[in-house]
């Protein structure tokens, strides 16, 4: 394995994880808000559906994605003429990563929204702020640590995603081969332990870096209140 290959593997991993998180974050905030504050028919079922990827074997999620979003799948074949292709593409890996990380993101954000003092929101409303303004200026800033934690959990999950990814988009170097897939490939071939160990260490460093970054983000945005 050359240095170029290694950089490529890390670039694919980061691209997949970052896009997976970026696309699903707004949706996760909306879902968390609906679950924390909403009262609607079928909420329990909706809650269960959101959590499904957390409890299902990842290979089942991958197989479902393949059946739905594959070239011949009912959704995949509709999207293909529009130029949106997931099969064998890094976008498919990002989709798998996003779905696997989604429940983690929603859980963290929902807990944070639950913990926001509703009296503050009511006070903002009495001062004339609309619902959207209350959400963006009161609820979201107060729930910020939960949003960051959720995004980080999802990012870490995306970096580690294996089963759904390999089932859905295969293991193509430079396109869908993320760190875990590359490590797996090396462990399957005698005499390539060195590369597997090397990539494993890189993966530990990457995860530690993500943790440190999220810690920094939470602290920066939220000076500790005096009474806490």
């Amino acid at each position, binding site marked *: 394995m050359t240095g170029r290959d290694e950089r490529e593997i890390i670039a694919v991993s980061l691209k997949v994880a970052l896009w997976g998180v970026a696309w699903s974050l707004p949706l996760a905030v909306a879902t968390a808000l609906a679950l924390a504050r909403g009262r609607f028919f079928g909420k329990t079922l909706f809650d269960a559906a959101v959590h499904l990827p957390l409890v299902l074997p990842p290979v089942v999620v991958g197989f479902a994605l393949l059946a739905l979003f*594959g*070239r*011949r799948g009912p959704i995949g074949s509709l999207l293909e003429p529009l130029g949106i292709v997931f099969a064998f593409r890094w976008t498919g890996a990002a989709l798998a990563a996003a779905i696997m990380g989604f429940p983690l993101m929603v859980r963290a954000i929902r807990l944070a929204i639950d913990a926001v003092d509703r009296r503050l929101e009511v006070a903002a409303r009495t001062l004339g702020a609309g619902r959207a303004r209350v959400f963006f200026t009161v609820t979201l800033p107060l729930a910020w640590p939960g949003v960051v934690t959720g995004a980080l959990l999802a990012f870490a999950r995306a970096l580690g995603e294996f089963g759904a990814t390999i089932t859905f988009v295969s*293991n193509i170097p430079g396109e869908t081969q993320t760190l875990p897939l590359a490590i797996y490939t090396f462990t*399957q071939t*005698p005499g390539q332990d060195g590369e597997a160990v090397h990539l494993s260490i890189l993966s530990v460093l990457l995860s530690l870096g993500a943790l440190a970054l999220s810690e920094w983000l939470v602290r920066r945005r939220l000076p500790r209140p005096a009474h806490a």
Partner: protein
Amino acid sequence: MRRILALFACVAAATLARADTITVFAAASLGEALEAVVKPFEAATGHRVVVSYAGSNALARQIEAGAPATLFISADVDWADHVEQRGLAVPGTRRDLLGNDLVLVAPAASNASVRIAPGFDLAHALGDGRLALANPDAVPAGKYAKAALVSLGAWAGVEKRIAPAENVRAALALVSRGEAPLGIVYRTDAMADKGVRVVGLFPEASHPAIVYPMVELRGATPATHALAAHLGSPAARATWQRFGFRVIE
């Protein structure tokens, strides 16, 4: 006469009493054929044969790590050599069991037509799809496929367009499911899957001869030995051939 009968009974009893479980590591492409060959052996001896199928590289790797298999059937010479060189095989038990061919396949519903010849334009035939094959760096079917494409001058055109799979059956599934428009697998794989259609046969001279060496591994029992003998016996030959394998004498 009575003495001979008694001896025979003793031997039969001893054989019956020792119903072993034999763990076999076999190349993924052997799938259904090996099951069919093993069935009469199990019925006749009472032994239970458990087969683990994977790419030969992954199996060699697991044998190296101490997997409890006692018989290894690799899809190429290299991985059998690898296991032997590390002293994991029983010396003198290796024999070349089967031969196979390499084919280009397309989904059954596709009307792709490709003529395999030196300098043929495989990239064009792929359109914007990918060529499914087993990992060309490690898995035998992928190594043969790469060798064939290299010798026909078609590798450079598709090198960036492949979808490498864990083993040849995974590559077959990609084509069968229609995710990949073309793939390279063994002729026997194409015969085993109604979802694919053979588009062309790679000339034998374009790749190293496809040979399945079989070797007994450390920990082999008399039951392992009996199974190995059965797999190479004239009785098994017809079954191997029914699944499209060439039997090596």
